[in-house]
């Protein structure tokens, strides 16, 4: 109806961030606080997460132990901080590994096409027919319970999405003129891929990473909860919830409440950030369904 001169979405988003998307700013600062606490906290807090003190067994939150202690008298704040470090750190690894694996396979499938493409597509289709936890459990069974196996399982489950997106984009961009002209100059295919095509995809990949980070953290915690993730005495939020389960019902609510709340807050914040970022960078498609 009324023509407004077209403005690039990036420029719009930059201005909006500068102007202040209050929710985004709040979520980002919240996450920053958590990140700092998780990275620096265990190092600053005067209790050791593994220091057993049976005299202080199952103390409720107090000034000395802000989040209380567990059944071995270990300081829960120290354990929650360390547990969050484990959970969030492993989540980050899953997301990165998925992105790298997906990018490489996607570029290969998109660029080479043919048999490579068909095999990779078949493989990813096959992978996607189990739920992520099912796959992680299978990997755990083949290797051994612990965070490494879970990370491998979840990474395997997360890479097909990147692969598909990148494969599609590579095929689309490869058909465009500027790539064709570069080709005419005689640049090698790999050079085209990494110098020209890949940069176009970075924002898509980063967005997806932000969107699945929360899910990865939750899956990791779920595996910990099932006893297949972090093994004692490693502090990990999901495993801590399992350990606290029995005490939760006998009145020591803090053992389950705090690890769960930290998970809830951290994942909710990343979800909000991913949402907002997506809306800002891609104002038209408010929500893209991953297949």
């Amino acid at each position: 109806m009324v023509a407004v001169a077209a403005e690039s979405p990036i420029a719009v988003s930059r201005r909006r961030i500068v102007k202040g998307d209050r929710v985004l700013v709040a979520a980002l600062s919240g996450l920053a606080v958590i990140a700092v606490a998780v990275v620096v906290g265990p190092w600053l807090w005067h209790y050791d997460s593994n220091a057993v003190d049976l005299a202080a067994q199952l103390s409720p939150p107090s000034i000395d132990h802000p989040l209380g202690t567990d059944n071995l008298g270990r300081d829960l704040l120290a354990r929650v901080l360390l547990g969050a470090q484990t959970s969030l750190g492993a989540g980050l690894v899953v997301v990165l590994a998925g992105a790298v694996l997906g990018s490489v396979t996607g570029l290969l499938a998109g660029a080479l096409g043919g048999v490579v493409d068909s095999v990779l597509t078949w493989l990813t289709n096959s992978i996607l027919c189990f739920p992520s936890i099912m796959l992680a459990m299978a990997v755990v069974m083949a290797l051994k319970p612990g965070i490494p196996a879970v990370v491998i399982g979840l990474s395997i489950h997360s890479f097909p999405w990147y692969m598909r997106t990148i494969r599609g984009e590579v095929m689309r961009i490869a058909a465009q003129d500027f790539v064709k002209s570069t080709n005419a100059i005689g640049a090698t295919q790999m050079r085209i891929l990494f110098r020209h095509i890949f940069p176009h995809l970075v924002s898509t990949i980063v967005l997806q990473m932000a969107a699945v980070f929360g899910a990865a953290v939750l899956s990791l915690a779920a595996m910990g909860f099932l006893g297949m993730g972090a093994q004692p005495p490693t502090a990990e939020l999901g495993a801590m919830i399992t350990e606290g389960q029995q005490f939760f019902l006998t009145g020591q609510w803090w053992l389950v409440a705090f690890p769960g709340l930290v998970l809830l807050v951290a994942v909710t914040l990343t979800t909000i950030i991913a949402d907002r970022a997506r809306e800002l960078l891609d104002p038209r498609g408010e929500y893209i369904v991953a297949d």
Partner: protein
Amino acid sequence: MIKMILKRFGLAAATILGASLFSFFLLRKLPGDPARLIGGDLADEQTIATLRQTMGLDQPFPLQFWNYLSSSLHGDLGFSYSTGQSVGTLVQTRLPATVELGMSGVFTAVVLATVFGAVAVYRKKRGADILLRAASSLAMGSPPFWLALVAILLLSVNLGIFPGPEGRLSPGIAPPPTFTGFYTLDALKSGQFGTFFDAVRHLILPAFTIAVGPFAFLSRLFRSQLRNTLREPFIVVARSRGLTRGSVFLHHAVPNSLLSLIAVTAMLVAEAMTGSVLVEKVFGWPGVGSLTVDAILQKDFSVVQGVILLSAALYVTVSFLADVVYSAVDPRIRAGVK
């Protein structure tokens, strides 16, 4: 058309084949010796050797896979050493519980997401919308097992509104005669209303916990879909015909937006198995999820193999069904089929 169906079928078969090959490979790489596990702690070497032979573990890998495939196709999914039953029987007894729970969960999620999404978009004040987005972000971020624990603590242990984590029925109540395997439906069919209410009471908390994740996902999707639909020209046209805002919303915007949920919901039904693994564990629900967890801890690999095959088949079937439903509901595609 037939060619299309055949192609789809082939694709589905290839996918399932891939999934089972993948899992078979993964599980046969087990460090432990399945024969040793089955034979038990004090079994002597003679026993182990005999077992290896009967289980076909001494054969080359491709042959083992082929044997597995062909017996699977004949309906024999193997024997579960950790429960002493055939995997087929186990799955048969466990699956209805999981499906009942998963379906109730996803159904709850769809209903809640539709209602809340619709209200949030319909209300002119932004409050409702902000509330929905906050709620769905929180739902997206909440660990289902944790939520389940908190729900049990507050609603069942403290307030006694819902039964504790005791499975599908109260201890004294016998399951209704089996027709579908869903206790709620079976109880209704055989007129055991007490059992029906008990089953429903037991279903509510787990179903709600399962619904949380899908709700978060669906409500966002529905909200944005609804907003997109409301921007469609036909909405303004309908308004210009004199329909009230509410009527256009209800009769045109909502149905059109719901279409987009079909495919996603189907995927969620398949994914509900994931959620159910955790929720089943917390609520003592005797479903496939808790079976799988136990089997993995016991290294009962024929069960895990069977469940993986099942979940792959479920996934493929459900996405196929989603296509069918979609084309039945959307007249544009339906016409294309003709």
